[in-house]
């Protein structure tokens, strides 16, 4: 039986929200760790995280100080931030509720359980000590759900849409996390990249920073096995954007997305769009881009492509019949 367009759309969004929850948890976790590792003289600030995720204005409208407590609250438990983890969990649960007949009971119960946990533990997310356990539990729940889906769902349209949502969201977030890294290569002068470019070679904190970026994507160990030598910006950005084998690398996400889309009917336009995005990221010369301070703009271009991908998925399967 073919899948309803409305249901396909909700399953796709369910995939996106679950991935968004996991990624936001990773983002806050790595940022907190980077700050612990860097000396207090480094001017790396929580504002940079807000800038990267495009949330500066929204944040400033409701908070006066961008300190750790407020920023963590903003990303994790702030009901007024539409992309906070707690709101994403609400949305994931609402979507799961509307497609409950499509997913195995264990998945519904897992989502419901995550939702209950988040709502019951808002307080523990507020302190640095409680936050680690909180974020760990959130990430673990998301991984459990991914495992349930892999282990118990038929490889039908619902499964493909769920994964399509996940991979597009994941590609988007990995690119943002890489952006966090490149924007903060120069902890002594956020915002003045040109001045910093010359002294980058001698930056003692560069490898600490990139190590944490890798850690946030659970990529450190796989990276070490794939790439020899010192951990540096060129290698890490290339790995996270272009590696064909690491499951959180943008190139791998797009490849996985393409394979999901190929299983679906009338996929020509969507497959063409994802192929173009894949070529674009694979052909990029990251060493050159880093030298020219062009990584941020490159990532902006990629994000425009991700938006186009979402639009073509929408047009091909969700709105075609309306």
């Amino acid at each position, binding site marked *: *039986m*073919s*899948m*309803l*367009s*409305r*249901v*396909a759309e909700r399953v796709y969004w369910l995939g996106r929200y679950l991935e968004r929850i996991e990624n936001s948890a990773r983002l806050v976790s790595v940022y907190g760790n980077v700050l612990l590792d860097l000396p207090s003289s480094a001017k790396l600030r929580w504002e940079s995280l807000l800038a990267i995720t495009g949330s500066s204005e929204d944040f400033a409208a409701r908070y006066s100080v961008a300190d750790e407590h407020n920023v963590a609250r903003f990303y994790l438990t702030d009901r007024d931030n539409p992309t906070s983890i707690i709101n994403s969990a609400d949305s994931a649960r*609402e979507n799961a*509720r*509307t497609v*409950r*007949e*499509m997913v195995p009971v264990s998945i*519904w*119960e897992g989502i*419901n*359980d995550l939702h*209950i946990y988040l709502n019951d533990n808002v307080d523990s997310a507020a302190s640095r000590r409680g936050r680690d356990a909180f974020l760990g539990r959130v990430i673990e729940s998301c991984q459990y759900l991914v495992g349930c889906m892999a282990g118990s769902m038929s490889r039908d*349209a619902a499964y493909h849409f769920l994964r399509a949502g996940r991979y597009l969201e994941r590609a988007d977030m990995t690119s943002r996390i890489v952006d966090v890294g490149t924007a903060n290569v120069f902890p002594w002068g956020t915002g003045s990249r040109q001045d910093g470019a010359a002294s980058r070679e001698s930056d003692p904190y560069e490898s600490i920073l990139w190590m944490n970026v890798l850690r946030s994507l659970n990529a450190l160990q796989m990276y070490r096995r794939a790439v020899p030598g010192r951990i540096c910006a060129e290698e890490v950005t290339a790995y996270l954007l272009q590696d064909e084998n690491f499951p959180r690398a943008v190139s791998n996400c797009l490849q996985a997305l393409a394979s999901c889309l190929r299983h*679906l*009917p*009338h996929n020509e336009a969507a497959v063409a769009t994802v192929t173009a995005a894949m070529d674009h990221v694979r052909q990029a010369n990251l060493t050159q881009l880093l030298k020219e301070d062009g990584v941020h703009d490159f990532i902006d271009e990629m994000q425009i492509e991700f938006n186009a991908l979402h639009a073509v998925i929408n047009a091909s*399967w969700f709105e*075609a*019949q*309306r």
Partner: protein
Amino acid sequence: MKFSWQNYDSRGFYDELIAERGSARAAGSAVAKHIRSLTMDEIRERQRAAELAVKTMGITFTVYSEGTNIDRAWPYDIIPRTISGSDWDRVEAGLVQRLTALNLFIDDVYNEQRILRDRVVPRELIVESGNFRAACVGMRPKHGVWAHICGSDLIRDRDGTFYVLEDNLRVPSGVSYMLENRKVTKRVFPELFAADNMRPIGEYTAHLFAMLASLSPREGQRPVVVVLTPGIYNSAYFEHSYLAQQMGAELVEGGDLFVGSDDCVYMRTIAGQARVDVIYRRIDDLFLDPEVFNPDSTLGVPGLMRAWLRGKVALANAPGAGVADDKAVYTYVPDMIRYYLDQDAILPTVETYRCGEKEPCAFVLQHLDKLVVKPVNESGGYGMLMGPSASADERHAFARLLRANPRNYVAQPLVALSTCPTVCGDDIEPRHLDLRPFILQGAQHYVTPGGLTRVALKKGSFVVNSSQGGGSKDTWIVDCP
């Protein structure tokens, strides 16, 4: 200290479990004995575990106008309500008899109208009823059945006799909670299942699917069955989704369907349009088709009535079936059973005063403090007056409503609802309850063994609706050796 039944007292009401001080009825003896083997702390612990299970299983219901928090955990009490198999066999026969007669009645009313011509049921009561659908006149659904799924509310009086309180023939809900209650009991009281010989209820959705499939207009093909829901904000959304999941049917909203130029119904899928054969609709008649009924409805499907009238799609329950679940029509069901089946009603009905008639209306107005007055056309316990517990002001206000539109009301004496032991804080206390079994009719009949037991959790209260603070219990039909 183990729990003792010695101090449990249902104060003259029929208790489902404890017959007289301390001793259990045969069907409940294993349950009563097991509870006696626990301390009150252990019992409370089980109740907490059950509430947690309900929460993690995501068993919810929705209360209207609650802002953003739209679903709540389903209230469930761990002590099962037990009914003996022999009592139940009689109830089951009575329910089948009743639904058979009701379907003959609906089919008659929309076609020959023999029962109206023979003046067994007054013509004006039917054709002037808000539930009579002129658009359905002349229609003959498959098997002659209009109400395929019926939920009848039963109560037990002081002597334990079952009465039918009302029949829900439009979109009765609650069956998913009946099924989920059993699962919760299995999680928290597994040892009870070894001791007792209770009838299983899990086959309901298989029977439901088979019945729906039997309505398909396309013979010889695997029928496409869908559940049509108003959407996530409906109070019974959990159930719509649950039933679709259990039947492997598609859960659709109005916007997912359209009627083609060939008058067939199609759903919009990722691969194009797909024909639908049977719609288990959980939307009220008036919202089904904006071309025929409420033109502002966005929940329904334009052209759906046309498709149904031309036999291109089956609707369950059929539009117009509600003409027989009006609370004034209820009073004529024993007459219908005699008229169509030439039998006496197996299940008695509660004495009911039709306020649309002059003398009964005067009587009701004089005795408002002793009666329960209900609008004929509402469900969920909305808009009713509980005379004995209402204030004088409330009764005056209600009398005005009644005089303004007497046809809209019926009144019944307050029936002494039976009780069942229920965990209330630090003790086990009697609480009043009713029972909603579900009856299916297609080519054959099926009755759920037991049904959904609803409990009035407030001490002394007779109001069991979940929208008004009611709870629920697992219901066991126990075959005693």
